[in-house]
């Protein structure tokens, strides 16, 4: 017997499922197929030609300032890892509280998501980024002013060009009230903003937000990775303080699998394009770059910074740190037709971990203090790992990492990251 590489088991299973159900699969967790990623890069540790720092003792700073281009009150974070936007509605209130607790414990920021700002996250997030999305669910000027930064969301890595939909089963009374819609009705999040239509309009929109907040709040512009070079340049021209770039591995947005797997480009390919645009405009490190989409380890963080990012943002990894897909929930995942490590139907509202749900009984399972401690531990680990790699490259600040510290394991990764293939001086495409 020989298994087909073209019709592998997953493909066959999907054809059978589609034939049975007559509708595409919707899920979260971003692209699951193998993509060129940071795993395809390696650091060149210091040796004779470079001088390392003592790994456990010498100072290696991790602080980052975001949004000091135009805003009078930029964010000052202690670590270069933030929590990506995930809505109340998609996530339970205890989950939002846990994210705030964990992020605040290590001096970093959380982000609201589509659906407005809750007291749980404002109350527990020392630094909170408030998203302005096409749906404008829950948008109001009071929350704009009590946010620490504003993030205008144009796209997400999982679905650049697509909107979203919160299914009716997750629309509790509270979610419905926050979004001005009846309980139980599927809530569409539009793919276009309602009051601007192009980059020239965006510039005027950012101007309005600055006027409303008296030019105090940093304004981030978030894009899904596709035509990254041009999108970043246009966002800079529009006046963004910070660019948030989300690669196709970005996973907390649920949508059709065909969209997730076939639209957008990997973060590894997008990040150098963004840096190129910033450098050509003379604003690299002045307009900060935050990247997301498949950040899992300190190695990912360090490699993203070395390629020119100022910070990274995590979503799926944060949910796992809170307790999602935990082995102890194996029986309950099995009852949903899934298993720990595979559960990706966060949109369905039945998350046994109590994280991606609006069911009160399920949500009550998540202890926000415990979840917050787990997240803080994970963020500390990411930071320690990043520092370890930076010291090995002789850097006293993680932002001193640079492309010259990296090589690629594959020709594809070398071409995308614009670093040499390991053992050679060849950078494909240059």
């Amino acid at each position, binding site marked *: 017997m020989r298994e087909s590489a073209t019709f592998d088991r997953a493909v066959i299973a999907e054809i059978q499922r589609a034939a049975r159900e007559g509708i595409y699969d919707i899920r979260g967790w971003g692209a699951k197929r193998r993509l060129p990623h940071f795993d395809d890069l390696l650091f060149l540790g210091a040796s004779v030609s470079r001088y390392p720092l003592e790994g456990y003792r010498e100072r290696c700073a991790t602080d980052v300032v975001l949004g000091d281009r135009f805003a009078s009150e930029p964010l000052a974070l202690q670590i270069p890892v933030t929590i990506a936007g995930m809505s109340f509605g998609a996530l339970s209130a205890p989950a939002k509280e846990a994210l705030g607790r964990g992020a605040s414990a290590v001096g970093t920021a959380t982000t609201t998501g589509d659906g407005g700002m809750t007291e749980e996250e404002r109350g527990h997030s020392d630094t909170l980024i408030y998203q302005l999305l096409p749906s404008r669910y829950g948008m109001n000027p009071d929350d704009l002013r009590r946010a620490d930064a504003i993030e205008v969301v144009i796209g997400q890595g999982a679905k650049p060009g697509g909107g979203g939909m919160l299914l009716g089963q997750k629309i509790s009374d509270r979610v419905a009230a926050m979004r001005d819609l009846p309980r139980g009705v599927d809530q569409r999040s539009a793919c276009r903003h309602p009051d601007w239509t192009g980059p020239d309009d965006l510039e005027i929109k950012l101007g*309005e937000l600055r006027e409303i907040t008296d030019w105090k709040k940093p304004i981030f512009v978030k894009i899904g990775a596709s035509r990254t070079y041009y999108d970043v340049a246009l966002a800079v021209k529009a006046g963004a303080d910070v660019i948030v770039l989300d690669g196709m591995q970005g996973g907390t947005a649920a949508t059709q699998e065909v969209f997730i797997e076939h639209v957008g480009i990997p973060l590894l390919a997008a990040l150098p394009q963004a840096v190129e645009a910033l450098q050509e405009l003379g604003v690299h490190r002045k307009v900060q770059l935050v990247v997301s989409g498949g950040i899992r380890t300190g190695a990912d963080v360090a490699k993203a910074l070395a390629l020119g990012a100022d910070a990274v943002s995590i979503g799926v990894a944060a949910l796992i740190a809170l307790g999602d897909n935990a082995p102890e929930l194996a029986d309950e995942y099995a009852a949903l037709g899934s298993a720990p490590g595979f559960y990706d139907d966060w949109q369905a509202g039945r998350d046994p971990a109590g994280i991606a749900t609006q069911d009160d009984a399920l949500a009550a399972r998540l202890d926000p203090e415990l979840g917050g401690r787990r997240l803080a531990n994970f963020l500390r680990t990411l930071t320690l790992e990043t520092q370890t790699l930076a010291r090995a490259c002789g850097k006293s600040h993680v932002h001193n990492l640079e492309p010259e510290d990296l090589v690629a394991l594959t020709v594809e990764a070398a071409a995308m990251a614009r670093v040499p293939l390991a053992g050679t001086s060849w950078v494909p495409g240059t």
Partner: protein
Amino acid sequence: MAVAAEVETVDLRETPLRELNRRLHGAGGDPLPPRWRVTHPDGAHAVAVGIDAPVEVDVDGHVGYYCAGMNQHATVRVHGNAGVGLAENIMSGTVVVDGYAGQSCAATGRGGLVVVRGHASARCAISLKGADVVVAGDTGPMSAFMAQKGVLVVCGDAGEALGDSLYEAHLYVRGQVRSLGADCVEKALRGEHVAELEALLARADVDADPAAFRRYGSARRLYAFDVDDA
């Protein structure tokens, strides 16, 4: 005898926009003057945005994008035309434009009243979330797209795809509707709707017979995702 309140006049040819908005936000901590007049707006964007006080602001001339955006409690009158996004995301208060309004008038408005005495362009009342919008003239295509809550009254004609993907907003049109959008249907105009219209037209100071309007709303066929909608 009551003394007329002093009018705070700001000439935008002499005062930066940022300064105007800061003062309207109460910068300095002193009580806001209750009446303001803004002269020479000359099409400026973001005029009188983010106000959170029961003041009256008269703008003498045309304004650009987002005039009176996210307004709370204030009454803003534009004695001219307004560009894109007039009173976007208005929370409360009243915004009146004597002339025409550009695209996305009152987009995502949550409360309060927006009155356009001329015509309003495309996407008027898009994603409306509770505000009331009265247009004395016509509205452009895709008006009330995905409108969730609130009321849109069109005294003239409505353009293509009115109320596409509508949720629970109430739509009233006196003239012709070029076409209805997905899931938007005509519904019976009953007594409670006439009463709603009558009150709203009176608030907007628009002279029109409520009985002459036709009502449109959501068929609610798109409320639960179905394979046939895909």
